[in-house]
């Protein structure tokens, strides 16, 4: 089950487009369910049982067809994994949830896996296959990897076995020909949840990271979550005003970069929908929108 989550249905289409292109290229089968709903994570802060039910519904829909869930969003990834764990450990909560889902003839049993697209690229497709199919080497690109928070914490669900020093994105980028060195701000959060309450403060911290990436000479920032992508790509003008310094950082999804390296055109991977100055990045590897 390809689970997009709210942000992608709303505006972050390029993530889904590029992800699907890669999955199709490597023959990874998936099914889209238009009847899916929000994973419920925001409602964890309002009523835990509501979140558990919404998350369980997604998993139950997948289970009905014997599918695992493939998520594109960090928030959904953690939400489903955590809900699954809680429901498996608490028979009462599982019963409550199944009572509600039962009216739709759905049942959650937890016998499925929740995978992040990055893990699927790493495990199911594999670096070897990717490297064999690289047509356009991303040579000369120095990229800042942004993992976000929920792909790494809590440790038990982390997509990288070393969550304090993750390298899974870097290794994929290296196979594509780019370099992705460590930088001190790597671990900074995109502050998306705090922006519900204090947008200025969130922008200040986002600006801090973007500015650092810019000053350290990176050609762009790589994301694996639509919430992070949106946080950094859409507000650069506003943030520039706030930080009193021009911030112009290309922010691009890992899946889009992989697509480019496989020989797809920028439009094919939805780069025409990115809201940051990606032309600069494309120019460095000899690509453009025309």
């Amino acid at each position: 089950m390809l689970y997009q989550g709210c942000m992608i249905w709303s505006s972050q289409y390029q993530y889904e487009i590029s992800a699907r292109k890669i999955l199709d290229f490597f023959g990874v089968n998936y099914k889209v369910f238009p009847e899916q709903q929000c994973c419920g994570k925001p409602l964890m802060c309002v009523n835990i049982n509501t979140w558990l039910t919404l998350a369980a519904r997604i998993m139950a829909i997948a289970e009905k067809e014997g599918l695992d869930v493939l998520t594109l969003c960090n928030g959904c990834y953690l939400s489903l994994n955590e809900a699954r764990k809680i429901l498996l450990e608490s028979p009462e909560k599982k019963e409550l949830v199944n009572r509600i889902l039962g009216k739709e003839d759905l049942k959650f049993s937890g016998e499925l896996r929740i995978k992040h697209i990055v893990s699927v690229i790493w495990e199911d497709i594999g670096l070897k296959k990717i490297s064999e199919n690289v047509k356009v080497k991303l040579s000369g690109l120095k990229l800042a990897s942004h993992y976000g928070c929920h792909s790494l914490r809590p440790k038990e669900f982390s997509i990288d076995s070393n969550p304090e020093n993750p390298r899974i994105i870097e290794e994929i980028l290296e196979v594509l020909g780019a370099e992705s060195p460590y930088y001190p701000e790597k671990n900074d959060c995109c502050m998306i949840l705090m922006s519900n309450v204090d947008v200025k403060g969130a922008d200040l911290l986002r600006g801090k990271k973007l500015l650092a990436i810019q000053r350290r000479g990176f050609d762009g920032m790589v994301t694996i979550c639509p919430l992070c992508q949106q946080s950094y790509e859409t507000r650069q003008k506003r943030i520039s005003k706030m930080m009193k310094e021009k911030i112009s950082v290309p922010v691009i999804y890992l899946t889009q970069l992989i697509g480019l390296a496989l020989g797809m055109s920028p439009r094919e991977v939805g780069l025409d929908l990115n809201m940051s100055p990606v032309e600069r990045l494309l120019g460095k590897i000899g690509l453009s929108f025309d």
Partner: protein
Amino acid sequence: MLGEELRKLISWINPEVCFGCNKCVSGCPVAEIHSEYRPNRIVRLAYLGFIDELIESGVIWYCTQCLKCSERCPMEVYPASVVVALRNIASKRGKTHEAWIKMAKNIALQGKILPEMGVMSIDRKLIKRKDLGIEVPNADRSLLIRILRESGIPLDLGE
């Protein structure tokens, strides 16, 4: 026992064992820009029973759930989870933050926390999902409201 109300919501928290190492504050991005926000202070106030004050102050809605505090706390206090428990208690008392009420209403309305906004492409066109030939969500409103209602959400969803 202290913190019982919190523990009923989230069983794995250990608010009373915090010995004040301040590691959570050192790594908290919110604490960096908000001087009144200290994760361990919220935990201590919560388990000592100052829940009204915490809810009134609104400080519990700032946490961005980056989970650095919970992950690195040497005593497994899980401050971020204490915040979630407090938000649940606040909601039960009708004090949910408006941003979350909005998200809940959107989920009831269309199954997502935001409606479809579309995106401005590089060619200055507003693109939506159908323009790209990818599936458009279909949400069953009554189903979603039922799920929210039956799971006990303490909000007026404007049914």
